[in-house]
């Protein structure tokens, strides 16, 4: 199972890296187009915005693997000195709540924005907000992984 998780991580890493580098490429092309050829790329700003929202909200779920999101440790270390598992469980519950909120209200947001069209790319605004419920579903996968790893480390901890 661990191998499977690592493989999925690599796929996410590759896609997210490609998205960021793609953004570097189109923004740099914009600089060249604007200053060298004097004809700015009209679609660049919107496309950068769309890819950025996807990058951040998909990446946020991937990031819980490596605990990239900053937490305040001082108080909980003190409060749960004897039961460090409690904050771990609370954190996981938090991620599940995030999934529920983004899925339920994300779909509502997609629904009300389905008639708005982005001016230059010509796509629907709801395609952009669509990443919100997607991020909710992806979060469930990473929560599953987190619970799995937590149980494994607990079992190993019990053995020693």
């Amino acid at each position, binding site marked *: 199972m661990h191998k499977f998780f690592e493989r999925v991580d690599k796929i996410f890493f590759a896609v997210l*890296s490609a998205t960021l580098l793609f953004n570097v490429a189109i923004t740099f092309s914009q600089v060249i187009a604007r200053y060298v050829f004097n004809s700015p790329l009209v679609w660049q700003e919107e496309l950068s915005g769309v890819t950025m929202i996807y990058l*951040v909200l998909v990446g946020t779920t991937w990031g819980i693997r490596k605990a990239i999101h900053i937490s305040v440790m*001082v108080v909980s270390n003190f409060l749960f000195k004897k039961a460090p598992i409690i904050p771990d469980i609370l954190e996981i519950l938090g991620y599940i709540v995030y999934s529920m909120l983004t899925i339920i*209200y994300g779909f509502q947001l997609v629904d009300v924005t389905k008639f708005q069209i982005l001016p230059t790319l010509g796509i629907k605004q709801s395609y*952009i907000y669509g990443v919100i419920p997607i991020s909710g579903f992806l979060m469930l996968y990473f929560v599953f992984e987190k619970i799995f790893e937590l149980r494994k480390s607990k079992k190993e901890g019990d053995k020693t």
Partner: protein
Amino acid sequence: MNAAIILIVSFLVMIFLRIPISFSLLFSSFLTIFYLGLPPMIALQRMADPLDNMSMMAIPFFILAGKIMADSGISRRIINFANILVGRVRGGLAFVNIVASMLFGGMSGSSVADTASIGSILIPEMEKKGYDRDYSIAVTVTSSTEGLIIPPSHNAIIYAQAAGGVSIASLFLAGAIPGIMVGLGLMLPAYIIAVRKKYPKGNPPKGKAALKVALDSIWGLMTIVIIIGGVLSGIFTATESAVIAVVYALLVATFVYRELTVTKFLKIMRETLETTIAVLFLIGTASAFGWLLAYLNIPELVANTILNISSNKYVILLIINAVLLLLGMIMDMAPLIVITTPIFLPLAVDLGISPIHFGIILMVNLGIGLCTPPVGNTLFVGTIVGKSTIENVFKAMWPFYLAMIGILLLVTYIPFFAEWLPSLLSF
């Protein structure tokens, strides 16, 4: 009033239970929105919208450029260059450390990257030459905060967003003098201790050899010219100069210094993604939270409370600084910028402090917070790189804390330092 209590108390309870700050911001916003009976999808819309903004894109680009430069030989050449400039004085390596951080700060805005890359070269070197290990770590850690203030600084962009559209170019300009002041301020305790402990003078290369070192470092130093020159002359936006910096750093690291391997590049990408995603998600959720703060008039409430204690501008600034220093001890810089800006900025503006000046005060102040336990990322990284303990480093830190607080007070009470450069170029 009840809604305000729900918003703030639920947020505090969640962060103390170790729910990540960004998620806590979102959840407390949802709770308050439920209580107020507003449509809950507002929270999600407020969270997503700031990400769709060209100037936000400068954050990942600056972080990426900084990491490429830190990991591919550019920082080592910057250190060599700083050595020719200041290596000769007593305690020379401490000065090299401080000046290298200044130059590095002109290319990257990350104090953690600065501590990791400059520290891993200079701390062992300083120890070999007879400097105390903890003194070396203290110099590295505190001087790395210069980079937060000296342009380019992605924290300045976070502030610009939180403050609701302050000009990034002006903020960059405003940071130049205070950033250099922090460096000069740190040189004072560094020198006094060096004399008292009889640390050695350095022996940097002279004449032709010095010229060779300077020429070797010129490619790295050019980054400063490109980024700062580009933004300040108004030719490029911050995002454009950030992307130029990425491409330039990639070219120099690959073709000139030839130290960028595929493995290194993958490590750089992973670290960049982790920092970028965490920071941008935080900006998003803080924007939902900030919208509610304003909706519930909380900044006004805080302002009135503080004004009840005193109506004297100088006292109020002291209070704000003290609160920020305390918060900086337990929280990281980016979350504090996004949370405290909407609360304190309106009060500061009422007192006649410009948003630019306030932004610089905030950054100098929170820079100190990165060096203080129990939560100080730069301090942690410095301690790990230097292989010491927080307790030992902390003992060596206090003269440097005093210097930084001294500079903070100067920057706070004399607006000239922050405002002179932007006013000169009439931004």
